[in-house]
Each structure stands twice: as C-alpha cells, then as structure tokens.
C-alpha cells in the first residue's frame, strides 16, 4: 500500500511533464489543426535555454557575490519561457505560415514540423557537441516524510506548477477575448476573419502560449532529471502527443487528463512489471481506450455535412 502511494506520487510528477507538453500540442492543434511535431524538441530547446541562463546567472562577475539559487530559479523561469516562445513563434513565421498562406495540404505542414524538429535536434548537436550537459542544482533538496511515504520539495513543486499552469490556461481560454478568438478559430476558420478578428495574431498568441508551456516543462524536466542531451525531447514529445490525443485533442482538459493517465500508467507498469514492458503495456491500454472512445476522453464526435 505504501509503495502504491509512493508510486502514485512519482506518477503524478511524471504525468505533470506529459501534461505540460500535451497542453502545448493541444493548443496549437485546437487552433490550426496542425500536429506540431517539433513541440518535443522545443521542450529540449527550453531545457537548454534554461541551462545557459541558470549557468550565466550563477556565475560570479567582478566583486558582486553570486545570486542565491532560488533567485536564479525565479529569474530563469520567466526568461526561459519568453525565449522558448520566441523559438516557437520563429518556427511558425518561417516554416508554417508561408505554407498556410499557399494553402498547402495540412499534412505537408506536419512534415515540415517533423523536419523542423530534426533541425533543432541535430543543429543543437552540431553547435554544442555530443557531450551531455549537467543542469546546475538550484534549490536544496528537502525531503518530507509522511509516514513511510517520502516527498521532495521539487516533486511537490512540479505537480503544483503543472496544475497551476493548467488553471491559468483554462482561464485564458474561457475568460479572455484572445481565448474566445482561439475557440472561434477552431470552430469556424473561415468566418472568423470576417468578424474582424486578426487571425495571424491569434495564431502567434497560441504559439506563444504553447511554447512557453514547453519551456516550463523543459525547466522542470531539467531540474528533476538534470542531464541534458539533444535527443531528450523526441520520445517524451511523441508520448505527450499520444497523451493529448487520448484525452481528446483540441481540448485542454483532455490534454491535462491524458498526460496524467499516460504518466500513471507508465509508472504503475514499471512498478509491477519488468521495465522493458513499459511501452508495450501502456500503449496497449491507450489503444484500448481509443478503440472504446474513438474521439478520446473529452473529444466530441463531430457531425459532418457532405
């Protein structure tokens, strides 16, 4: 029973990463119907940006004493989120928008996204070399004991951050004008410009939101597993996409729930089976969910006119 609780806590932490990344996927998908396969690599870029900023801030310059770890962390998070969203928006401007303007089939945009992801990974490898980076330890580890179950402050921080960012995103989407415009675009792409809504600005706003979530996920991931390498974003990105779809892609509640479902399944499988069975069992479960509910947990079946 204790191990179950312990595993559940680990699963919540692991699920938080998936949820944060899946939120980015689902935001972009909801507005553009584009599977942004470069998203996992944007997470990697976010982790690297966080690494450079944290290392730069931790350094001692002249006679000024070094900043304490929590100040560095408090500065790193917003700067990283801003810089990562710059990367995401640049990608949108350079690669996706021209294709969208030309009216290309959306699958060609998906292929472009895949290629952009490859460029990010291998460009990183080319620029920084194959040596792995060790993320600096910014906050002291505190372990809280609740009977036999132990929790670190980092774990609580990760879980709370993901829940908080979900709540904020949900507020943005349901309460603000920009959020209303985003929902409008996903409802009817052709009528929206006629209503005087600047569609390109809204798309850029969506990319800013999605990529800053990716940046946040990158920092949290780097804090929890402090070894960075250029290919770290691939498998977590693909899996977060799967989580977003299982939740019902285009719906942020679905992405949030899907991320936690995937995280919990993976950790529970590893807890009770050999770890090499992780992907096999967790994906079989997800396939079964999709077979029973073909539009995901929160997705609504759409009626199509002929």
């Amino acid at each position, binding site marked *: 029973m204790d191990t179950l609780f312990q595993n559940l806590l680990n699963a919540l932490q692991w699920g938080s990463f998936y949820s944060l990344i899946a939120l980015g996927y689902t935001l972009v998908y909801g507005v553009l119907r584009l599977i942004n396969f470069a998203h996992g690599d944007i997470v990697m870029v976010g982790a690297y940006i966080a690494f450079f900023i944290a290392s730069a801030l931790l350094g001692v310059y002249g006679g000024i004493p070094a900043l304490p770890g929590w100040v560095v962390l408090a500065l790193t998070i917003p700067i990283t989120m801003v810089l990562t969203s710059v990367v995401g928006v640049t990608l949108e401007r350079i690669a996706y928008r021209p294709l969208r303007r030309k009216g290309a089939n959306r*699958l060609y945009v998906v*292929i472009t996204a895949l290629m952009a992801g*490859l460029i990010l*990974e291998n460009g990183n490898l080319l620029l920084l070399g194959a040596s792995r980076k060790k993320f600096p330890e910014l906050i002291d580890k505190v372990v809280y004991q609740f009977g036999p179950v132990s929790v670190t402050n980092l774990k609580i921080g990760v879980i709370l951050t993901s829940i908080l960012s979900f709540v904020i995103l949900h507020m943005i989407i349901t309460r603000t004008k920009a959020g209303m415009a985003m929902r409008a675009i996903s409802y009817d792409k052709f009528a929206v410009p006629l209503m005087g809504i600047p569609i390109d600005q809204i798309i850029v706003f969506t990319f800013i939101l999605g990529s800053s979530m990716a940046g946040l996920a990158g920092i949290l991931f780097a804090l929890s597993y402090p070894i960075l390498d250029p290919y770290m974003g691939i498998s977590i990105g693909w899996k977060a996409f799967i989580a977003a779809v299982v939740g019902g892609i285009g719906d942020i509640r679905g992405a949030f729930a899907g991320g936690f479902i995937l995280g919990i399944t993976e950790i529970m499988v590893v807890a009770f089976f050999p770890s090499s069975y992780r992907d*096999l069992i967790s*994906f079989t479960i997800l396939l079964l969910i*999709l077979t029973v509910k*073909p539009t*995901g947990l929160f997705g609504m079946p759409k009626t199509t006119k002929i």
Partner: protein
Amino acid sequence: MKRLSVPVLLLVLFAVLMGLAWFEVIDVYLQTILLFMGINVIISSSLNLVNGNMGEFSCGHAGFIAVGAYVSSVLSVALFTKSRVFGAPLLPPEWAAFGFPVILIIGGLAAALTGLLVAIPSFRTRDDYLAIITIAANYIIITTIINIDKIGGARGFMGMRRVIFAMEDFAGIPWMILWVFIFMVLTLVIIRRYMSSTYGKGVEAIRQDEVAAEIMSVNTNRVKLITFMLSSGLAGIAGGLYAHAVGYVNPKSFDLLKSTEALVMVYLGGMGSLTGSILSAVLFTLLLELLRPLQIIKWVAIPLLLIIIMQFRPEGIMGHRELSDIFPKLKKFYKFK
C-alpha cells in the same frame, strides 16, 4: 509493340544492373546503394497507398517493416544456416535460392496480419486519432521485439549474410539485386493494378469523402482493411529485403525516425502519385548517400533542404499527378489508368 515497351525497358535495366554487378563494374558500395533505392521504392510506394491514395495519416510504417524483417530473417536463418540460436539448418542450404522469395512472402504475410492492429481500429477512428494508433502500433511492435530474448532482444539479430552465402554457393550471381529488383517491380505492378481496380476507385472515394463513399455503396471497412493489409504486407517484404541486404537487424533501426523517412519520401514525391514516390525514393536515397561526407551536418542540411522544397512546391514534386499527366506523350507507351 508499344504495349511492350515498359516490360522491355525494365528487362534491359534488369540485365544491365545484373551484368554490371556480375562483372564487378560497380563495387559493393554502389550495389548497396542500388539495393537501398529499390527497398525505399517499395517502402514509399506502399506507404503512399495509405497516406496518399487513401488520405489517412499513418506514421508507423516502420513497425510493419520491422515485422517483415524479423520474421523473414528468423525463418531464413533457422531454415538454411547453422546458427547458435537455432542449431543445424532444417533444410539443405542449397534450397535457399528458391526458398528465399517464399520466406520474404511469409514475412510480408506476417506484416499484413500485424496491419490488422491498425486496420481494425481504423473502422471507427478518423484522421489524427488514427495517426496516434499507428504511432502506438509502431511502439508496441518495437517493444514486443525488444522483449523476445530468443531473437536477440535489444541486441539485434544477425546471421542473414550466411543465407546470402548459401545462395551464392548454389550459383554465383548477385542474388540480392535480383530479388530486390523482382520484388520492386512486383510491388509496383500490384499497386498499379490495385489502384486501377474497383477497390482502387473505392480507395480514391474514401480519400475524397468517406461518408459520401459509404453512401455510394463503397464498403469502406472492407476497402480500408484490404488497403492497410496490402500496404503493411508490402512494407514487410521491403523489411525482409532490407534485413538481408544489411545482414543485421536491430529494433532501434525501425523506430519512428525510420517512419519519418518513409513519410518524407511519400510527401516529397506528392500524395497519391506512384511515379512521384518512385522518383522521391530514388532521389532521397541518393541525397542521403551524397551528403554522407558531411556527417552530422547532413542531418541539418537534409531537413533544411526539404523545408525549402516544401516552401516552393507545397504539393511535393509531382503533386497527385503521374509522370504521364505531365508528359502526355508517355501515355502511348505507358497507360496508367
């Protein structure tokens, strides 16, 4: 006479390739590139059947390639060679020359059966939900292979070279070029025949509008089932050829990166264009080999090049047209529909 021009052309090409390889005018490296070209043509044209002609988005093609590769290499190693895992050959090694195509087809059949993993959920799920099923299927296949320790697990499986040697003991001709060429032509003929049959019309109808197709009495489930199984079966044959051309298979080499390569070949050539996917498979293989000296820069240069191509030709090289649509005079020699 004009009707025969394509078969004659293919025969001449075949004879030239075999001759060049036999008299060792082209070295083993060039032969390997030619083999990869042929295999990639099978991969891209079979994926084109689902992604281009039927308009679904399948991104787990490498899973089926893996099934074909493993089934055929395990069978051929067990049947024709003495190996540590399976012991003495079950059949005389001289039979390898005739047994090899049978084994490839068995590998293809196994892959087609695995295709059911995707085909059956595709009855109810549509576009991006189906994409996820294919990705999950790819993961499931790879992890299943990793967990079967008998065939090497994550270490990979080897010994297919000895099958080739056994064939060469029987007769000293370049066997792999022979089989890759034959199966490539067979694949193209099958796909062309399939697409010009009644089922092919059904496939086109599903791409244009699935609901309308169903109302117009296309049995969509049946068409989807057959198309998915055909596509994955041909991918399995390509996998068997790949395994024997390289002589070593590893589950890691069939991950989503391989699927991405297949996707790139399809969309570079143009969705639904058979000649486009042949052309793009050949070009893509050449590009990979030509840029090899650049090492890691290659993996930045190729995606960049593809993004630029996409910007200028957002519908791929051919863009849902065949070669004979662009050069109508070719139709005299080669009638597509």
